[in-house]
């Protein structure tokens, strides 16, 4: 195995090291993930007008988000499977199209059930983008700065949220919540970029070729990850991420309570929209605030990642 020590001899700056193809692959994944965040988080900003229009409680609207997040597992495993079998590009394009179109369709909702359905479907596309994009970028990117660029990729979720807040601040007054959802179709344009400029990672192509050549194709990767030789790896990864998320959400429960206290003490929940600055809106929505008590509030799902 070649290690970083062998490679660190190069005097090239790390950002000059990747080739154009490698940058394009990373940008594809980055676009997919950031715009994914854009489409998902915009819903946090328009939950109140939606609950008013359809006369449903805000908790029901918030439940849409939970369902979206649960369905991510379905989308992720489906797209991961596809990515391992037919290549990283196709599932990436499908999932970007999927979440953009779901969002667009949700903008036409005549009833709350319809909206619920399409925002739930969005979760499948959303989950699908992450593995396909992540694998594409990480397999392509040079090893030296892979960790860092992986971090930038993952962290760009926040950038997507900033983007949706920005669009909300600039255009919400004129286009309303339906218009916001319609704007969510724009990420679909990035599919053209992926299709035209991005190449499959050479590692995957070679691996696939050998699988065919040696007739050792892995037909069902979801089952293969529970095989004896991989199982320990899979389980430690599951516990690692599970533990991380449990700790993360346990801690953020606290900050959401504090935040809620600040928000409610300053001004009542009843005063929405209009004059208050944009960041305060996203802040409050992002924390699912608006419940009658801090406890009920804390019971809501978290909306990160």
């Amino acid at each position, binding site marked *: 195995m070649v290690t970083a020590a062998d490679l660190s001899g190069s005097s090239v700056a790390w950002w000059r090291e990747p080739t154009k193809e490698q940058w394009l692959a990373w940008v594809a994944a980055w676009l997919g993930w950031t715009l994914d965040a854009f489409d998902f988080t915009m819903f946090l900003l328009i939950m109140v007008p939606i609950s008013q229009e359809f006369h449903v409680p805000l908790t029901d609207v918030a439940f849409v988000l939970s369902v979206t997040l649960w369905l991510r597992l379905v989308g992720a495993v489906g797209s991961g499977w596809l990515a*391992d079998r037919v290549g990283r590009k196709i*599932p990436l394009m499908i999932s970007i199209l999927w979440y953009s179109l779901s969002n667009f369709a949700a903008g036409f909702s005549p009833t709350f059930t319809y909206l619920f359905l399409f925002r739930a479907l969005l979760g499948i596309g959303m989950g699908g983008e992450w593995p396909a994009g992540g694998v594409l970028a990480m397999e392509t990117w040079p090893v030296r700065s892979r960790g860092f660029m*992986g971090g930038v990729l993952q962290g760009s979720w926040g950038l997507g949220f900033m983007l949706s807040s920005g669009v909300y601040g600039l255009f919400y007054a004129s286009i309303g919540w339906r218009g916001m959802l319609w704007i969510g179709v724009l990420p679909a344009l990035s599919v053209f970029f992926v299709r035209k400029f991005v190449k499959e990672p050479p590692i995957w192509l070679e691996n696939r070729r050998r699988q065919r050549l040696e007739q050792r194709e892995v037909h069902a*990767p979801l089952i293969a990850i529970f095989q004896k030789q991989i199982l320990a790896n899979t389980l430690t990864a599951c*516990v690692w991420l599970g533990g*991380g998320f*449990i*700790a993360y959400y346990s801690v953020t429960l606290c900050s959401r309570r504090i935040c809620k206290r600040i928000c409610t003490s300053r001004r009542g929940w009843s005063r929405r929209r209009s004059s208050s600055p944009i960041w305060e809106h996203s802040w409050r929505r992002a924390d699912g605030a608006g419940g009658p008590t801090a406890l009920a509030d804390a019971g809501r799902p978290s909306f990160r990642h």
Partner: protein
Amino acid sequence: MGFILQGMCAGGGMQGQMVAYLNERFPTEIRATASAFCYHQAGIFGGFVPVILTFLAEHFGTGLATPMIIGTWIGCIAWAVAVFYGPETNGKVLVPDLVVA
């Protein structure tokens, strides 16, 4: 301030390495499926945390602080144990070799 710091450390610090580490630790044949499954099953666990903690707080009348501390400890211990037993992938070059039988 605390909120921002916490967001930087927890959100950035914890989640920053996920993509790279997940993709480095699995062989090419199953890389996408494995990282997808591991990450998103964790997301579902995480999604239940606020609900469970709130339930515990109400059921035992302890307030939110105690369940939160317990939740954080369980999460951190699980995380540390898993990282300890997980493979080291620093500097690993991804190769097209067939690994899965």
